[in-house]
C-alpha cells in the first residue's frame, strides 16, 4: 500500500469504502467528460422476495447514480439494461440485550434493481446445491454421535454412574 498517502493519525479505509472524487467542472462546448478508471463497485445480491422475470438486484457504491449503474453494466459487462431503480437502505440496528440502546449499527447502503433488456434473463445460481452446508454437516455429526451413544447404552447401563474412563 502507498504509505506516503496516508495521513498521520487516521485509520486505513479500504478503497471500496472511500468517497469517489468530484468530477471536473463542465463548461459548455468542452469535450464530454469521461471516466477512465471508475472506482465504483457493484455486488450482486439474491433478492429476498420474488422478483419479475429478468430483474437483477445489486448492492452498489452509495455515490452511484442510475446512469452510472446502467453505463457500468453496459460498458464493462456488456449486458443490455432497460431500466434501473435505486434505493438507499438503512443498515440494521441491534439492541443491547440488557440495556435498550442500539449497538454497532450496520452501514447504510444503496440497493439497485436492474431490469434487463427484453429477451435477457438471469437466475441467481445456487452455490451449495450439490455440496452440504456447514449447518447440515454439524447436524449430521450430532445425529451420528447420538446414534452411537444409543447403541452403546445397553452394554454399559449398569456402569453409567462411573466416569467414562472406568466403564
Amino acid at each position: 500500500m502507498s504509505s506516503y498517502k496516508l495521513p498521520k493519525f487516521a485509520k486505513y479505509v479500504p478503497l471500496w469504502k472511500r468517497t469517489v472524487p468530484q468530477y471536473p467542472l463542465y463548461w459548455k462546448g468542452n469535450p464530454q467528460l469521461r471516466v477512465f478508471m471508475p472506482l465504483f463497485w457493484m455486488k450482486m445480491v439474491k433478492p429476498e422476495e420474488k422478483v419479475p422475470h429478468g430483474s437483477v438486484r445489486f448492492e452498489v457504491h452509495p455515490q452511484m447514480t442510475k446512469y452510472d449503474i446502467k453505463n457500468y453494466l453496459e460498458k464493462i459487462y456488456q449486458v443490455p439494461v432497460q431500466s434501473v431503480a435505486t434505493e438507499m437502505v438503512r443498515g440494521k440496528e441491534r439492541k443491547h440485550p440488557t440495556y435498550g440502546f442500539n449497538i454497532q449499527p450496520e452501514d447504510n447502503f444503496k440497493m439497485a434493481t436492474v431490469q434487463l433488456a427484453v429477451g435477457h434473463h438471469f437466475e441467481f445460481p445456487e452455490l451449495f446445491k450439490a455440496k452440504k452446508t456447514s449447518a447440515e454437516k454439524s447436524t449430521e455429526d450430532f445425529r451420528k454421535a447420538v446414534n452411537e451413544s444409543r447403541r452403546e447404552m445397553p452394554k454399559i447401563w449398569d456402569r453409567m454412574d462411573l466416569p467414562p474412563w472406568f466403564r
Partner: protein
Amino acid sequence: MAVPICRILRSCTGIVRTVTTRIALPRPIQHCTQPISQNETLKSRQIHTSCHRKDLMEFFDDKENWGDSSVKVGRPWKLDELRLKSNTDLHKLWYVLLKERNMIMTMEAEYKRQSELFPSPERLEKVEESMENLLDVVAERDRAYHLLETGETGEPGERVATNQLGLHYIRRCKEHYVPLEYSRKFKKYTRFNGPWQDKYKQLLREKLLLNERHVYKCRRIVEERRRKALADVKFE
C-alpha cells in the same frame, strides 16, 4: 510446456498466480525444418487469452471453486511491475481488477447469506492493494507529464482561507464556476469579518504564547531537577 488456458485466465484476474503457472518451462529446441511462422503461433498461443464472455456470471467465481474451503491465489501486483507496463495495459488491467473485486464481494455476500465461511478472504485486500498500486503509478505518470508540459504538478494546490472568526487556516483548492470575490456564499459567510476582530485575535495570540511559555518553563524545571539528581552519577 503448454499452460492450461483456464490457469492463465485466472492469473490475469488481478492476482498473479504462482510462478510455475506464469512462466512456461524451457521447451526443447525445435528442428530447423519447422517453419518460423508456426513457431511464432505456438509462442503467441501460450500468452493469448481471449475474452471469455460470461455476462452476469462474471460476478461469480469459477464453478470449481464453489463451496471449497480454500482458493489458491498468488501475490498482488507490485509497483515496480506496474511501472514497466504501458498505459493501455494498465487501463485493461484496471478493468480486470475491478471485475475481480466485484466477483469477490458478491461471493462474500452470498457466503455470508448462507452462513458459510468465506474461503481465503484475503483476496479482496490483495486485489485492493494491486489497485492502489496501479492508481499510484498512474498518478506518478500524470505528475511527470504535467511537470514536463507546464512546470507544475497537476494536483490542486493549497491556499490560506479565513473562517468566520477571522482566523486563517490552510485549505485545499477546489474548482468553482465563479471567482471567490464574486461568490455570494463567500460574502455571506464572511460578512461580519473586519478590523473589530483584531483585538480578539491579539488576545488569542497572547494566550497561546503564554501557554507555550508555561510549557517551556515546566520543561526547564524538570530538566534542572534531573541534572541535580544525576550530578553525582558518573557515566562511563
